[in-house]
């Protein structure tokens, strides 16, 4: 449940950045202009597509998987939990790369991007905790 809620927050952050990037939002509320610097850099696009759009896809997938995992027929299956770890793991790696670019190449910090980094990190930790809890519940009880 926490993952679905966090992913929804991340989705709206990505949507906000994407809408600004394509010019639908007039001004970005960021504080010191770092968001504009980062979002207008050459690294804000990946294969010609704004990075924020990939964030929307990532968080959309996480919402879908987590809501599926909450349905009764999937509740006790391992698939959704493992999928959450895999998808959020990819997100964490990509976010780490983008954060490195902000720090070492662009020399500017985008606060919304950092907020998204925190969200995807929390989702990954929650997904790992889900796997750990699943393994504990599956392990046989010690013999008396």
């Amino acid at each position, binding site marked *: 449940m926490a993952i679905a*809620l966090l992913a*929804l927050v991340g989705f709206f952050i990505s949507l906000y950045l994407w809408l600004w990037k394509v*010019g639908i*939002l*007039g*001004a*970005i509320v960021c504080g010191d202009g770092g968001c504009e610097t980062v979002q*207008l850099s050459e690294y804000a696009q990946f294969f010609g597509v704004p990075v924020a759009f990939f964030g929307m896809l990532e968080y959309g997938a996480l919402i879908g998987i987590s809501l599926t995992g909450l349905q009764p027929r999937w509740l006790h299956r391992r698939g959704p939990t493992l999928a959450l770890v895999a998808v959020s793991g990819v997100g964490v790696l990509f976010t780490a790369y983008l954060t490195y670019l902000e720090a070492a190449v662009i020399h500017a910090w985008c606060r919304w991007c950092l907020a998204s980094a925190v969200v995807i990190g929390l989702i990954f930790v929650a997904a790992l905790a889900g796997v750990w809890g699943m393994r504990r519940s599956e392990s046989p009880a010690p013999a008396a």
Partner: protein
Amino acid sequence: MAQSVSMKLFYGAFGVLVVVGAAWIWSSRGGSEAVEVDPVPVDPTSFAGWVLGSDSAPVEIVEYADFECGACAHFAILTAPDVRQRLVATGRVRLRFRDFPIQGHRYSPIAHQAGACAGEQGRFWEMADQIFFNQSTWIQDRRPARQFEDYARAIGLNMDQYDSCIKERRHAGDIEASRQHGLAVGVNATPSFVIGGLLVAGALPYDSIVRLVERAEARARP
């Protein structure tokens, strides 16, 4: 039973979050709230920006923009043509463009130099259109100056004069004067507009511009 209650709580929280997020995105459209600003004294000897329209127009729109800003390009492509055709050409409005290059934007300095050097030959607005309309192209080029040269050629500038203007950074002082004027007015985002004493930030849609112009016209009437 307990699980059913917690699921209901979850879906409730999820729904609330969807509504709050959608409202946040919706309220971010258009621009910021307009705020009243005091007129900033202008040194008559300093650069006053690029002007389009009649001196006798009752309302002036001052735009503070950065050539590397995505929202500024969005405004230039979607809204500015309507403003020029329906408000400036009809004599209702005079448009004043003030350079506001954002610190940290890598290519803003050269883009604004290119605009000013075209302005020196009386072609600022044509060059500004070229720069904004092609922003997504030159922004990815490691040497955008070459593209600006192409735009200068395309709008028929004297290239010897343009090249020497760029090389000498002839208008760097004017551009900085415009930026300082914007800071004094209270500009902290681009594009920002001052219309009838109101400062508003964001790529305003045409309807919002018209509302502010009508308000300024009403205030200007005796």
